[in-house]
């Protein structure tokens, strides 16, 4: 009989540890060496997806991610920006599920060097990041909070979707990153934002009840390996555990602050179930007033209701994932959650 080893899950409570066989572990070690990863990562991929899909993931992370931009209708019409960029030789292809998102081939031009960029006609932004704001879809005149706002891609996108009506409260803790947040807000012609520096875990002390909250949570970045190969070896399970703990705390305060009937989108740029499905599953247990609801745009694949063989809340299939080997994009998790009207 094959010996099986425990692979520690950061959410482990004794019942949801990952079981990995000796052969699988040996194979994972070989793959880790071949692709330059820490072995614990590959072990998780093999258990999560099986060996063949894990290899597809590893190969996909060796390929560059295509550049993408969001056309900013606060500064120019879609038609005007398209026409100007095409005249400069930029090749553009619309992302089917996004109103203003395009895959952009700038060829030898630096995307940040064009006048249209300086004037805020477009924002260089990953497709999954654009999808996050579209998944929240804040309505005009709403009160919105962006809990981890720098460098401002999602804040400026939401302000664009609301046509500068309502208020977007953009919170960022890092002093240097607030500079990029402010700069992008100004460049993109956003006039409906209030930028606050501070720890979003204290949002409830602000005394506001937002209609919408976007929590693109600080995470281990395990979905960004194609963009940052150093991530193959830079984070341990302890780092993932640390992120998950912070994500729990951010979600709790977000839900306490959210207006009854309000909507929250939780997202991470991590493919780790430990920072995604497990975090949301725990949340649903802690906060019965919250429920996962469908996202009204079609993208990605459903999130996992039983990652590593651990049965989680079935409604997790309403959340969505982007995976590098399935979508040629950064790995992302996006979940839309609503608070009961009567809570």
């Amino acid at each position, binding site marked *: 009989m094959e010996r099986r080893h425990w692979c520690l899950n950061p959410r482990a409570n004794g019942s949801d540890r990952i079981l990995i066989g000796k052969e699988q572990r040996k194979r994972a070690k070989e793959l880790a060496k071949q692709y330059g990863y820490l072995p614990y990562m590959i072990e998780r991929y093999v258990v999560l997806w099986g060996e063949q899909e894990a290899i597809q993931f590893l190969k996909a992370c060796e390929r560059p991610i295509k550049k993408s931009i969001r056309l900013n209708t606060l500064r120019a019409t879609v038609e005007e920006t398209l026409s100007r960029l095409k005249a400069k030789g930029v090749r553009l292809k619309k992302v089917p599920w996004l109103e203003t998102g395009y895959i952009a081939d700038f060829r030898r031009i630096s995307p940040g060097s064009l006048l249209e960029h*300086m004037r805020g006609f477009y924002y260089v932004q990953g497709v999954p990041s654009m999808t996050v704001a579209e998944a929240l879809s804040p309505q005009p005149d709403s009160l919105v909070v962006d809990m981890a706002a720098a460098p401002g891609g999602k804040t400026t996108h939401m302000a664009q979707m609301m046509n500068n009506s309502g208020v977007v409260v953009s919170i960022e803790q890092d002093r240097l990153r607030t500079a*990029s947040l*402010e700069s992008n807000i*100004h460049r993109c012609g956003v006039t*409906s934002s*209030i930028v606050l520096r501070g720890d979003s875990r204290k949002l409830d002390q*602000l005394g506001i009840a937002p209609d919408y909250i976007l929590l693109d949570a600080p995470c281990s970045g395990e979905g960004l390996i194609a963009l940052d190969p150093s991530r193959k070896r830079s984070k341990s399970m302890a780092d993932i555990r640390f992120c998950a703990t912070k994500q729990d705390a951010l979600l709790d305060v977000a839900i306490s602050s959210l207006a009854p009937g309000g909507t929250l989108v939780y997202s991470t740029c991590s493919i780790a179930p430990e920072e995604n499905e497990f975090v949301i599953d725990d949340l649903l247990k802690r906060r019965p007033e919250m429920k996962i609801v469908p996202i009204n745009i079609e993208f990605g694949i459903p999130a996992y209701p039983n990652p590593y063989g651990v049965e989680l809340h079935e409604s997790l299939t309403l959340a969505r994932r982007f995976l590098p080997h399935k979508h040629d994009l950064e790995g992302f998790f996006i979940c839309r959650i609503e608070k009961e009207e009567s809570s």
Partner: protein
Amino acid sequence: MKPEHVDMVQWDMVRNQIDSDFGAGVTKRILGSLTPVSLPRGKGISFYLVPPNWLQILDRDFKPFTPLSLGIWLGDLVEGKFRLSLPVLERVQEFTSNLLIVSRQGAESFTYGRSILKESVNKIDPSLLRGQKVFILNESNECLGLAALSVDAYKINRLAKDRLVAKNLVDIGWYIRRLS
């Protein structure tokens, strides 16, 4: 630190400087139905324009957060001198004739932080005088920033092509340079 209603003495200084730089009544026209508020920043005070219905939000104590900006950033008052912000330039430009249109090369150079030389000048109102602030526009009349004339406009034709005409005060390339 929280946003406050503007101090009337300080606001008078702001209004006087904008109106004297760009024409009487320009401040009022930029303001429209918006309300000015102020926020201490470094050694100076930043001014912002917000819708009147924001005042109830701004009445709260923002602790434990620090407000950094809100609404439309109008500019900063430091040691009695007011500097218009970059994002508000386009709004102000609509109400003034202090305009300097530059060539394609001049426009590109200006967005890299350079000043305007005689060879880049396409069009300027000859009544503008040395020291006056002028909006720099490209050949498509797009606002690229603000500069201070270093020579009376009617004398520009007498200059050699490599002589300074307007000193760069702020340009839209700042958005990119600031992040690099």
